[in-house]
């Protein structure tokens, strides 16, 4: 008897405890920052504040290593195991939205009014994801280099033209002071190629795919503008301006600092390291090859999984996280560009006179998102291989034709990717 009542009491107690716990719905959040202590701490700060700010939800984070994050999410989606809140790389978002991994984001549009364009993830006219920051690329060089080579300093309003840029490379090459004039980061395979190099193609007037319809790459990737880009690209390696695909990854990391290269095409994440080594480092805008100066846009963003039963809470968390002080804090610990100018003003590096302020301007003026289509993940691979092949001496016309054909075949195999 006694045992029975004890058990009963325990049961009642545990049930009431369970229902209390149920009142606090758990929201699972997946993030790509495993191994990145600074980012994890900055995210945890937001989560703790959110959890304390209301009593309906508790956000619990699971971190994944960035390198394999997309594979993990795709596998989990196949197995029906997605969390409530996901972070997603900007150019990949349309793929996941189209496949039904994500649902449209239900947040107050007023909150993101003054955001940079890069961190806003739209697909099919709806907002699916929103980021705290953007990343930007610049042509790194040093004032002393420009002076020694007798070059003018390009600005956002008046960037180098294609000819000026090639003249700069010629001067660097002729000086004999460098192993190579230009370091493009060729050993960084993967997303770096389309992110860093497709803006050059756009500056020539071409593109990875025809953005007016997203139905074909014919003409965009293998038209006259693209051919001009391809020939230029090949000449960078054939004429010895830049190290090719077999560049030592160590040289990519340290070559510019060691003075092996006059110019380095690199992201803002490498900026502080360069500044530490030399105090006259410059972050120059992308050259204009006739059709404007561009750099890639969109970095990691947050969205809500389609399978989430707590979309309301998930959206509430994301909206909560978009406050300027959190954006500024994230930027301070990661060195990335905050999504709003008001947050930028609160940061160490991007405030007026900050060491990296120039990147905010670059991002604002030159950033162009990669093609907004579910097929981008495939096109990016095709583009990467085409650029590597051309760099290694493949016939430009044949390679670009083949790439355009492969992209078109992929669009067809996917019934137009829902455009």
């Amino acid at each position, binding site marked *: 008897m006694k045992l029975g009542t004890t058990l009963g009491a325990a049961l009642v107690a545990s049930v009431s405890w369970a229902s209390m716990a149920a009142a606090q719905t758990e929201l699972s959040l997946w993030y790509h920052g495993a191994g990145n202590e600074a980012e994890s701490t900055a995210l945890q700060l937001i989560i703790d504040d959110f959890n304390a700010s209301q009593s309906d939800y508790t956000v619990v984070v699971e971190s994944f*290593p960035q390198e394999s994050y997309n594979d993990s999410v795709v596998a989990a989606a196949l197995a029906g195991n997605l969390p409530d809140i996901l972070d997603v790389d900007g150019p990949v978002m349309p793929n996941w939205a189209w496949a039904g991994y994500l649902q449209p984001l239900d947040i107050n549009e007023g909150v993101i009014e003054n955001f940079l364009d890069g961190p806003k993830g739209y697909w099919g006219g709806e907002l699916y994801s929103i980021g705290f920051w953007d990343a930007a690329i610049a042509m790194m060089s040093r004032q002393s280099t420009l002076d020694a080579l007798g070059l003018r300093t390009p600005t956002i309003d008046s960037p180098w033209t294609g000819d000026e840029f090639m003249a700069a490379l010629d001067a660097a090459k002729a000086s004999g002071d460098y192993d190579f004039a230009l370091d493009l980061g060729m050993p960084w395979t993967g997303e770096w190629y389309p992110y860093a190099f497709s803006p050059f193609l756009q500056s020539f007037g071409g593109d990875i795919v025809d953005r007016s319809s997203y139905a074909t790459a014919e003409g965009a990737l293998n038209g006259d503008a693209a051919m001009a880009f391809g020939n230029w690209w090949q000449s960078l390696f054939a004429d010895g301006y830049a190290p090719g695909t077999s560049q030592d990854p160590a040289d990519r990391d340290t070559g510019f600092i060691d003075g092996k290269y006059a110019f380095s095409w690199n992201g803002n994440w490498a900026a502080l390291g360069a500044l530490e080594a030399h105090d006259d480092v410059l972050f120059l805008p992308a050259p204009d090859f006739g059709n404007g100066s561009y750099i890639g846009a969109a970095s990691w963003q947050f969205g809500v999984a389609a399978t989430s039963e707590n979309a309301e809470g998930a959206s509430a968390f994301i909206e909560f996280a978009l406050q300027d002080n959190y954006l500024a804090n994230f930027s301070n610990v990661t060195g990335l560009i905050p999504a709003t100018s008001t947050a930028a003003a609160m940061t160490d590096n991007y405030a007026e006179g900050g060491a990296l302020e120039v990147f905010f301007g670059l991002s604002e003026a030159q950033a162009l998102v990669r093609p907004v289509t579910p097929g981008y993940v495939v096109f990016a691979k095709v583009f990467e291989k085409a650029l590597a092949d051309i760099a290694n001496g493949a016939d430009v016309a044949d390679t670009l034709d083949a790439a355009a054909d492969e992209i078109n075949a992929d669009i067809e195999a996917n019934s137009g990717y829902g455009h």
Partner: protein
Amino acid sequence: MAAINQDNRGLRLIVRYAVLTLIAIIFIFPVLFMVMSSFKPNLQLLRDTSSLRAFLPVGDISLDNYYDAFRRAPIGLFVFNSVLVTGVTVLLSLFFCSLAAFSFVYLNWKGRDLALTIIIATLIIPFETIAIPLLLFVSKLPWIGLEGIEIGWLDSYHVQIIPWIADGLTVFLFVQYFKDLPGELIEACRVEGASWWQIYVKVVMPLSGPVIATAAILKFLVMYNQYLWPLIVVQQETYRPVLVGLQYFFQLNITWGEIMAYLTIVTIPVLAIYLVLQRAFIASIASTGVKG
């Protein structure tokens, strides 16, 4: 005369050791590189790679990389997970695969040749090519857990173990080895009335030291270096193994020294297992002299 012979023998010995050592130099340098690099700061490490300094403990030597590596990732947890998953899988694999091989070699049963052909054919299938079908399959399998029957094996140890227990290579290793054991011995045991199980446990397995050691180390390597499978079936950090953990170190600004420190730590269990199993090669069938 005797003295000359002695000299000859001494000289030969020196030559033998010289050859062995020369070859050893060719084989030891990845480990040297890994270990030495783990003590160096990033820039120096990268600069050293173009010269023999890469294999020497020179320059700015410290344990900083180890300290940072432990801060970056729960290394103890990853090593524990890998050792647990690997250990259990290896033990079960040795048992099930040797048992099957025993049956293929010594027993005569209907369907035997077909079954063996199928098993050997599976050697050809690279895991990468069946990973996705297998993922879809295990995500539908039931499991009896603490809270009753659950559907789906994801996020667990058993999902990393059970599909890997039996494999064609291990079965094949045992089959080839058993073929070399003296059949007369087994027949004699049968005549004396021993059951098949007794023969397996008391006669065949005790004679199988070398192949057990070989199969164990090979399976250990495969399991310890698992990457793709845990990546797609494990979402929680709690169950992650060492090679997935390696990804924690590939950030935008890579600190190669930390990676080398991490790899040095996670290589220790493999080296230890090899050194332990190496003894089994010596305690071999050759010394028992049963082979006719």
